[in-house]
């Protein structure tokens, strides 16, 4: 009888554990801070790609001037 009670309690405990949510960054998102992170990243990416496009155009100009 005790065995049955014990195994039932174990099952209950285990199922409670699997239903527990893993901690994620909900509070961070609820505060809207994730958008700050994204804004920073977007600015960095934008500047990086502007530099890259300008470099591309500079090289193209050099190639054309060399061809002539």
């Amino acid at each position, binding site marked *: 009888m005790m065995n049955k009670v014990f195994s039932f309690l174990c099952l209950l405990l285990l199922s409670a554990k699997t239903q527990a*949510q*893993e*901690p*994620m*960054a909900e509070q961070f998102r609820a505060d809207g801070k*994730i958008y700050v*992170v*994204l804004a920073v*990243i*977007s600015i960095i*990416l934008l500047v990086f*790609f502007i530099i*890259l*496009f300008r*470099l*591309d155009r500079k*090289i*193209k100009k*050099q*190639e054309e001037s*060399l061809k002539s």
Partner: protein
Amino acid sequence: MKWLQTYWWKVLCVVLIFYTFWAGLLNDVPRLPILNESIRNLYFHVPMWFAMVGLLFMAFLYSIKYLSSKNIEYDIKAKSYTEIGFFMGLIGISTGSVWARFTWGAWWIDDPKLHGAAIGILIYLAYFILRNSSNNQTLIARFAAVYSIFAFVNFIIFIFILPRLTASLHPGNGGNPAFSQYDLDNNMRLVFYPAVLGFLILGIWLSSLLHRIHILQKKYDEQSL
């Protein structure tokens, strides 16, 4: 390679990278123990490595092309792809190390995949040392091309084949499940595949720019002679 100088695929690259960051940080991800939010690294660390392997594979192909045709342009292409690929490999290893610090508890562990990646970095470091070892361009090109072929084959063995044959902590090797464990709801695949494409195209773009710079340098050197 006229199409390499068009712009449409570069705009695509920009769109994909922005999408990767935005969707990567805002979308829902599976709630897994230990990883928590850091699972989002899957969108950055892994595509960096995939792009690197793609670029080094292009270098491998161009090395073969150079050996069969002796056209120095192919050698310069191989060199450009290897340079950018190596750079992405450094990013991949450092991002992996940071991820490891917070999930495995150490910056580096005694693991076959990590050692394989480190050996791969050293192999390609030796490639650059080989490249700078002489002034004779044709000799260097031939040595570098042969080395590049062996380097790539061995690199694939070190990072993909050997780690899967032994016990490893790194996901995807030694009995650990790889992506299939994480893509429980396919939501991650929606960001992961564009991320791989985006970083691969970025790598190709950077390599093509470097290649054009090398060609210009060569032409200027020839003109000044």
